[in-house]
């Protein structure tokens, strides 16, 4: 399910429109994931607050979005580009990789809210493919 040139162009276009609101979008997607999939809270049990407006959620939402934005610039070789992040998630954070798709879905929901007209089925397909490829690259160092 590799990305076509059109897929890559679509992702870059949307990211261009989103990068200025990285903290808001990331916090929203993260809040939604924590609400819809409560099991994901286990990775943040050290936070004081998991509520949508909390400073931890906002900060981490921004961190995630910056990571994804970086991945957008490394679309030609995601596996190599995300090697360090993969090691982090595999060895230090030890996030079960099944959770990546849970966050991906919520990023898509936020995009649907932000771009009701432009987030067409084709755009959705391109971004979903990218997020799947990203999740795969992030899982690379797990075993």
């Amino acid at each position: 399910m590799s990305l076509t040139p059109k897929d890559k162009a679509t992702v870059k276009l949307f990211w261009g429109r989103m990068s200025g609101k990285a903290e808001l979008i990331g916090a929203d997607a993260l809040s939604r994931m924590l609400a819809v999939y409560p099991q994901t809270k286990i990775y943040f049990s050290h936070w004081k607050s998991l509520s949508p407006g909390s400073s931890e959620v906002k900060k981490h939402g921004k961190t995630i979005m910056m990571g994804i934005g970086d991945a957008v610039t490394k679309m030609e070789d995601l596996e190599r580009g995300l090697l360090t992040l993969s090691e982090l998630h595999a060895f230090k954070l030890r996030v079960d990789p099944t959770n990546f798709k849970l966050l991906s879905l919520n990023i898509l929901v936020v995009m649907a809210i932000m771009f009701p007209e432009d987030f067409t089925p084709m755009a959705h397909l391109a971004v979903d493919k990218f997020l799947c490829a990203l999740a795969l690259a992030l899982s690379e160092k797990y075993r």
Partner: protein
Amino acid sequence: MVEWTEFERDTIKDIFSKIDYDVVGPAALTRCLVVYPWTRRYFGIFGALYNAEAIMGNEMVANHGKKVLHGLDRAVKNMDHIKESYCELSQLHSDQFHVDPDNFRLLADCLAIAIATQWGSAFTPDIQAAFQKFLSVVVFSLGSQYH
């Protein structure tokens, strides 16, 4: 049995009282067929499904989308007996249509996104959580009679 909070019950009733079946149903099914192309295997009789434009313009897809969304009505009316309500439909999807039950989850995800497109920020995280919990119970129920 599934435990529902008052907020969840109210939210589900509210969503389905406001939802535009004619828009959201077709939008969700269309998204599913475009984003997850392998799901097209179940709709061979619908004719042209070879690309996004064909799917989006296909009247049979649109009608079926409305039908599928209305298929959730029984769960809305019967939130304490959802599994029982879908016994027959589950058998149908298993024995007659041979639908891989993982696809129910994919369609449910597309439904959440279709509603997000319609409602915007009114589709808050708590409302989304209630809606997706409701859908996950329906998805489970639809897969429950597979053998």
